[in-house]
């Protein structure tokens, strides 16, 4: 393993310290792995989080118009209920708090335990569970789909709705609408190595790729030989549009998300064909986001997300935010 680290048990702490030092708009809640906005305003609070290793998610999306707080667990491990509770308690301004949770057993359990704790203290808590990964079939397994990069659209749109002063119920409704209209799928060219484990999470031959990869170095749904960028984009796009009811003339937002070690140039090459595919389907691309939003350590590969928009979602997607990791 070759990584820029000091003591492995300080990995998350030092990462958060570095992030806060570079972004004076963020503040760390003392004694926790929770980052919040330095200045909180009287509105519905938004908390998200999960394991570390997905940077810039989730702390990079804390800022006006997006999240109020982000909780970071150990690498690829859900944060514990006391940490999530600390975030809820810190951002609560009396208007209630919305939790944005990715659909993983551990995340859901820890966030729900924290929500129970907060409700016992009289804090109004609602939650939305993001399950945008079309690689996972819904029918066969009771657990449902995973939450991956599409979650960032939920942060952005629900964040703007909360900033506009909407009620918890309204912000929750809008967040729910985003989850219902976003689909994603990813692939990996190389695995990643969890620092505490020291070796890659799986092995890939030189010409092999994992299709339907999650964001935790867990194997995907199938292993195939490496195809061209166009063929790969077409495959993922096909899976997504098969699942998302779209008709010609619909407006969409596209996210081409790097997994951590993919050059921007390759992401642009992918998008070059995604643009063809959307225009073939007569979709109107309102916004395209290209870069790293929800990574998987140093994995090479990408995920593609498509969000179907309406006027309400468009307005909040376009609203300003100061979150460091949202493109200017």
């Amino acid at each position: 393993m070759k990584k820029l680290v000091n003591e492995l048990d300080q990995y998350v702490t030092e990462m958060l310290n570095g992030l806060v030092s570079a972004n004076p708009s963020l503040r760390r809640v003392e004694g926790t792995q929770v980052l919040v906005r330095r200045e909180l305003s009287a509105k519905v609070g938004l908390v998200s989080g999960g394991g570390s290793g997905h940077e810039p998610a989730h702390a990079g999306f804390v800022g006006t118009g997006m999240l109020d707080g982000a909780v970071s667990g150990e690498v690829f491990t859900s944060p514990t209920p006391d940490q999530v509770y600390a975030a809820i308690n810190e951002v609560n301004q009396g208007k209630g708090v919305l939790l944005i949770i990715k659909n993983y057993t551990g995340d859901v359990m820890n966030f729900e335990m924290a929500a129970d704790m907060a409700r016992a203290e009289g804090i109004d808590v609602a939650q939305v569970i993001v399950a945008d990964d079309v690689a996972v079939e819904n029918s066969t397994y009771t657990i449902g789909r995973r939450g991956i990069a599409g979650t960032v659209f939920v942060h952005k749109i629900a964040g703007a709705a909360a900033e506009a002063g909407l009620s918890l119920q309204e912000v929750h409704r809008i967040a729910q609408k985003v989850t219902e209209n976003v689909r994603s799928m990813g692939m990996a060219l190389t695995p990643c190595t969890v620092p505490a484990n020291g070796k890659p999470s799986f092995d890939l031959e030189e010409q092999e790729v994992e299709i339907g990869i999650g964001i935790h170095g867990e194997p995907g749904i199938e292993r195939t030989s490496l195809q061209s960028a166009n063929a790969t984009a077409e495959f993922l796009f096909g899976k997504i549009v098969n699942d998302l009811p779209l008709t010609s003339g619909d407006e969409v937002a596209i996210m081409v998300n790097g997994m951590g070690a993919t050059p921007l140039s390759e992401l642009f090459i992918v998008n070059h064909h995604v643009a063809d595919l959307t225009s073939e389907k007569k979709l109107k691309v309102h916004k395209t986001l290209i870069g790293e939003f929800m990574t998987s350590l140093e994995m090479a590969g990408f995920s593609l997300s498509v969000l179907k928009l309406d006027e309400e979602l468009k307005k909040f997607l376009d609203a300003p935010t100061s979150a460091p990791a949202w493109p200017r």
Partner: protein
Amino acid sequence: MEFGLNQFKEFITEYAQRLEELKSTLNELDNRIGDGDHGTNMARGFQVANQQLQAKNPTDIGTACNTVAMALLGNVGGASGPLYGTIFMKLASVFKEKLSVDDEMLLNGFLFAKNGIIERGKAQYGDKTMLDVWETATSFLQSNVGTNRYRDLMTVVQEAVLETRDRVAKKGRAAYLGPRSAGTCDPGSVSSGLFFEVFVRALDGEGAIIRWETLVL
């Protein structure tokens, strides 16, 4: 048989130590069908639980169980933190203010814990999770209450762990692999199998050490 406060403390100390020994085995299993950190998280959590138990030195088993539960909830993370935390919270509610518990109360505690796992994790028997082991262990204890067949419990539990190998996961991160999850023992079942192995030794004073690292890999 009686299970006293000191035996409980020894149980936690030894479980923490055995988790440390099996850390890489658990990580390796989790790497194959999950995210590779089950051993690291469990070893870290029970190390803290053991330290807090020594530091706080509770005077009854219920309080000791609560100390362990809180340490796990705050230090394990993932799905294992809430699930193992729930086990000890439920044990605490049954063993409240007790200096020592008998067979029947032990069984009650384990049944409460098992139901807690079901409520929190919403799994069913056969889903290839730790519940497979807890279901098997509690139903064995239930049909053998008062017979002191605790060493047989170890055999039954070992089989239950190995039976998870061929199952297709329906809960937890392994479920995303679908049929590809078959062929690997569930790491949560192994850590639960280890739980009962160490428990029997703490209760009985003897009992074998199971070579999980050669059985499950």
